[in-house]
């Protein structure tokens, strides 16, 4: 039982991180109908910038943890969002209205280029980070498996909840959110009614990248090691999460992220750690076969 609770906590933490990345996929897919293959790389860049940010805080002598954490989050979100914006501007916007495959190939190209860019700029070796947030609660019932929740895990889940709430409000209440929903439903009609579609799409990429940067920062803190290759697998898992929850649906992305995190944690704990990626992909296939619209997605209407 204790073991189960511990895995539940670990799974929730990873699930929150996957959910944050999945939002980037689901928003972009909802609006322009393309799989932003480079999103995993954006997340990786976010992780690297946050790691650099933490070291920068050390150089500048800012040791108060909440302040340095806030500053690092801000730096990572700002620069990663700039990357997200630039990627859309360079590689996707000229291809809008082209064949369906063109942006996907372009995205794969961006993904390969970014991976190697970071590898060249920062080296291929695994980058470690000293723990920034230490400590936690001990929930052990005295005997059996020790159960603990670290402050970091609490922070990750809390931060995710806060961001998700803010984001949902943004989509539901603000004019930007309204424009986004309009663009999602019908890009041409939205443009006719005076919505600046290009700007809405750019904003979507910026927000998605900023959320991915938060996820990257959290992973850097949580695992303490990153390398230039983390984007690929995390990207696929987050995409699986987005599909599982129903692509295009924001609560779906979050729910899918949580489920993927939990499945992964329990699979590694009870079956085999080597095949945990296989479990995730198998889930993806099964969901697509039996419920192609995902858990919370709306059915797609076939237009002729």
């Amino acid at each position, binding site marked *: 039982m204790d073991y189960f609770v511990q895995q539940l906590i670990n799974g929730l933490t990873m699930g929150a991180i996957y959910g944050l990345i999945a939002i980037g996929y689901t928003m972009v897919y909802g609006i322009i109908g393309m799989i932003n293959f480079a999103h995993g790389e954006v997340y990786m860049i976010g992780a690297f910038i946050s790691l*650099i940010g933490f*070291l920068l805080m050390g150089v500048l002598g800012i040791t108060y943890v909440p302040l340095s954490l806030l500053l690092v989050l801000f730096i990572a979100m700002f620069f990663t969002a700039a990357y997200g914006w630039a990627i859309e501007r360079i590689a996707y916007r000229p291809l809008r209205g082209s064949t369906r495959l063109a942006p*996907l*190939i372009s995205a794969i190209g961006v*993904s390969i*280029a970014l991976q190697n860019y970071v590898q060249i700029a920062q080296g291929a070796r695994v*980058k470690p980070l000293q723990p920034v947030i230490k400590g936690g609660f001990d929930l052990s019932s005295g005997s059996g498996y020790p159960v603990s929740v670290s402050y970091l895990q609490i922070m990750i889940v809390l931060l995710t909840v806060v961001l998700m709430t803010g984001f949902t409000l943004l989509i539901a209440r603000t004019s930007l959110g309204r424009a986004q929903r309009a663009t999602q439903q019908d890009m041409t009609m939205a443009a006719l009614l005076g919505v600046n579609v290009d700007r809405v799409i750019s904003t979507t990429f910026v927000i998605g990248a900023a959320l991915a940067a938060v996820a990257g920062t959290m992973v850097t803190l949580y695992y303490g090691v990153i390398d230039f290759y983390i984007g690929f697998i995390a990207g696929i898992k987050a995409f699986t999460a987005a599909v599982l929850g129903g692509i295009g649906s924001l609560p779906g992305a979050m729910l899918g992220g949580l489920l993927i995190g939990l499945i992964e944690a329990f699979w590694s704990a009870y079956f085999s750690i080597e*095949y945990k990626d296989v479990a995730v*992909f198998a889930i993806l296939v099964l969901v697509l076969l039996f419920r192609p619209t995902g858990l919370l997605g709306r059915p797609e209407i076939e237009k002729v």
Partner: protein
Amino acid sequence: MASARPLPLFAGIIKDSFLAGLIAALLAMPLLGLRLVDSVQGLSLDTRFNWVLIAGIVVFLGRLCLALAGVFLGQRKERRGVAPRTASRTAKQNSWRVVMGWVLILGALILPMLPFAERNLIDKATLLLIYVMLGWGLNIVVGLAGLLDLGYVAFYAMGAYSYALLSQAFDLSFWACLPVAGLLAAWLGMSLGFPVLRLRGDYLAIVTLGFGEIIRVVLLNWADVTGGPNGLTGIQRPSFFGLPFSASNAKGTTFHEFFGLDFSPDHRVVFLYYVILVLALLTNLFVLRIRRLPIGRAWEALREDETACRSLGINPTTTKLSAFSLGAMFAGFAGSFFATRQGFISPESFTFMESAIIVAIVVLGGMGSQVGTVLAAFLLVGLPEWFRDLQQFRMLAFGGAMVLIMLWRPRGLLSNREPTIRLHKNASPDDATEGESAS
């Protein structure tokens, strides 16, 4: 128009380029400007701001040149006018492509006899031909049937491992294993394809990607059979009708003894080159022929409109499945050739990158275009091979080139969406291509 008010235009270009350079410098700031250094005490930071400056200047100049070139070419185009795509122009293009195809085939045939062809060049040409063959195989799936398969490498791996395991377990020769490996790959394609082929477009892409990764993870972890991360070594090399290419053979004559030649390791290299050339050309012939059969026409029709196809009585599942498994079969052939050429295989060779490269070759070449595939394979695989010294920057340039080619020609280098055959010869192709001539 541009010549009427040149000054504001150029001021605009310079301002635009300056902004681009500034943004590039901003982006380069955290990742290029600051570098993580491994040291004994953990990580430390190092500054490298000159790189930021260089990145900014390079982007500024690049953007400037592009914009100026755009203005210059735009003026010329205005003067000359754009030639409309007429039937005769399309026909001329097609016949030009046929000629080019034959020139390429002839060139490939006589390549090993040319004076400058050393071992290294033949080796690279062999590698290139593997990718050409894979591209042609995948062309059936992506180019003709319009199914985006991002896990093609799974079938390639299946072919490689089935040859390696069969030859080790039963001591069979390459030629005996080749068809079996192809059939096994086709079987894998069919069993993977059956459940997922009713998915559309992007979903299919992701599921096939997932399958590719599953196969790789299984190869990595099923150590009893596949050797795990160490892979399989000592795979049998191919023989020339039973004559091995070795310096000496205890059991009988070797290739050079039989023909009375001096022993040279080049014999095997040249032989391998011709084997893959023949395999690739067979693939090509097969694809060119099957496109004209009912099944091939059904693939092309399915690519254009699935709903219409279904209402005309084409069974989408079996049609897609045949494309998927035939494509997989050619990957299986290429895989067993790869295994016999390398003599060693490991899951390292079958990563997602390989799938991405093959898909990129097909899409960049222009889906459905056979010559385009060769061109793209040369651009993406051949050229980088020559720059192996710049190892690190090779893949960066590869990714960048993928984006640039897509931006430049979104439909591929030699785009070809013309139906392979028309039922009514006198129908003008202009009607069909009207909407696409804008590109």
